[in-house]
């Protein structure tokens, strides 16, 4: 993992070259003076450049999810009320709101009926300091379902957030490839660290789940060997 270690109190050099630099997670501005920029967490300073624009952020791995707009998340319905649902994205965190209309083609009359305990795959649609976070099950690009909605069967488990992001954006991550060789599976990865998985049977699901959780502590070259072992033990 490259990048320089930054801890709070360090001064960070934001790209002074051409183009603007915007700040990403882990870097904060002073609420009283927006020109003062400082790192608020310990991690590795990184920057990505896209068309003249540089985004600087501090890569850090946490357990506690803080909702960010357009994040893909896996949540559990915890209350049902008149116009929608309250969904938990992380244990002990403030629940977020999923409107009953936040589904493709949903109308006042025709809308899905979720129950407490149901699992949904959704996208964060509203984040604001002063109001509750909202999620919806509509693909913002197509306006269609796009894989969002209720997840049936399978089971849920948690990984650390940086790992979840890594798996979400690298669909050919070694660990997933290694599991593909063992069994067929469906997976929904949330940026909130919750992963839903369903495979052909209970045993392979347990194995796949354990493999993903434990692979957070594996080096790349160990993956195949360890996955083989886990599947052998369970089956």
């Amino acid at each position, binding site marked *: 993992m490259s990048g320089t270690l930054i*801890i709070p*109190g360090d001064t960070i050099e934001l790209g002074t070259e051409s183009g603007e630099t915007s700040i990403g997670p882990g870097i904060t501005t002073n609420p009283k003076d927006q020109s003062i920029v400082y790192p608020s967490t*310990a991690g*590795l300073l990184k920057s990505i450049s896209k068309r003249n624009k540089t985004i600087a952020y501090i890569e850090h*791995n946490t*357990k506690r999810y803080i909702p960010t707009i357009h994040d893909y998340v896996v949540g559990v319905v915890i209350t049902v009320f008149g116009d929608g649902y309250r969904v938990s994205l992380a244990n002990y965190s*403030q629940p977020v709101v999923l409107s009953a209309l936040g589904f493709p083609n949903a109308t006042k009359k025709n809308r899905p009926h979720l129950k407490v305990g149901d699992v949904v795959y959704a996208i964060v649609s509203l984040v604001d300091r002063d109001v509750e976070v909202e999620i919806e099950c509509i693909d913002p690009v197509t306006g269609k379902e796009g894989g969002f909605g209720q997840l049936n069967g399978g089971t849920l488990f948690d990984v650390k957030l940086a790992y979840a992001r890594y798996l979400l954006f690298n669909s050919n991550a070694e660990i997933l490839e290694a599991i593909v060789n063992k069994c067929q599976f469906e997976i929904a990865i949330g940026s909130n660290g919750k992963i839903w998985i369903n495979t052909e049977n209970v045993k392979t699901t347990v194995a796949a789940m354990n493999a993903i959780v434990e692979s957070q502590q594996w*080096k790349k070259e160990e993956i195949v060997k360890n996955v083989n072992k886990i599947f052998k033990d369970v089956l």
Partner: protein
Amino acid sequence: MTTSFNAELGILDRVDGSASYKFGATSLICSVSGPIEAKARQELPTSAALEVTIRPDVGVSSTREKLTEDKLKSVLGSVISTFLYPRQLIQVVVQILDAGEAPCYVVRELVGCINACYLALIDAKVGISESFYAKCVAIEQNTGKLILDPTDRDLTSSKSHHAVCFSLGNGKSKSLLYSESFGQFTEEELLKVLDFAAEAIEQENIGVRKVISEAVSNDYVWMS
């Protein structure tokens, strides 16, 4: 001198961040959860509420712990960027495993609490505006010599003892966040103590940074 403490990050599973911190005979564990859902009575409209609990090694918590909680809260309140998490809660718990000093002193305990909290906050990645670190210093009764990290025995034979906490910028002691003194001393002596502590904190920060760096690389094992 850089190895006068032992610390480890991420030792607990259920909470968001945790650290063990040990210097001399004093040993404690700190956990941080947050930002989590605040109870209605704790909720603040524009910033995060801070809940600090200190649990003694022996017996139930009393006013002594309450006082330390208060001091700790004032230090943490000034560095945690609470404005980032409106209406939420940051929950900090310190469990003292060994106070390492007689019950009439709280200086080692307080210093331990501050440092353990710093490390646990770093582990939980709760937003803080700057790093901070604390040290305790005693002035010897007869010689007037300054003792860093006085032991229980040093404390009884000293004329005064001090807990000093500085914020750190780029590894240098920046501003004084907290200082507390007990006993008799002159203004000059106090200034000397502060300088002495500031330097010790900078020294030790090299070690602290190493601990954090290890923890961060540990977080990304799968990348290697």
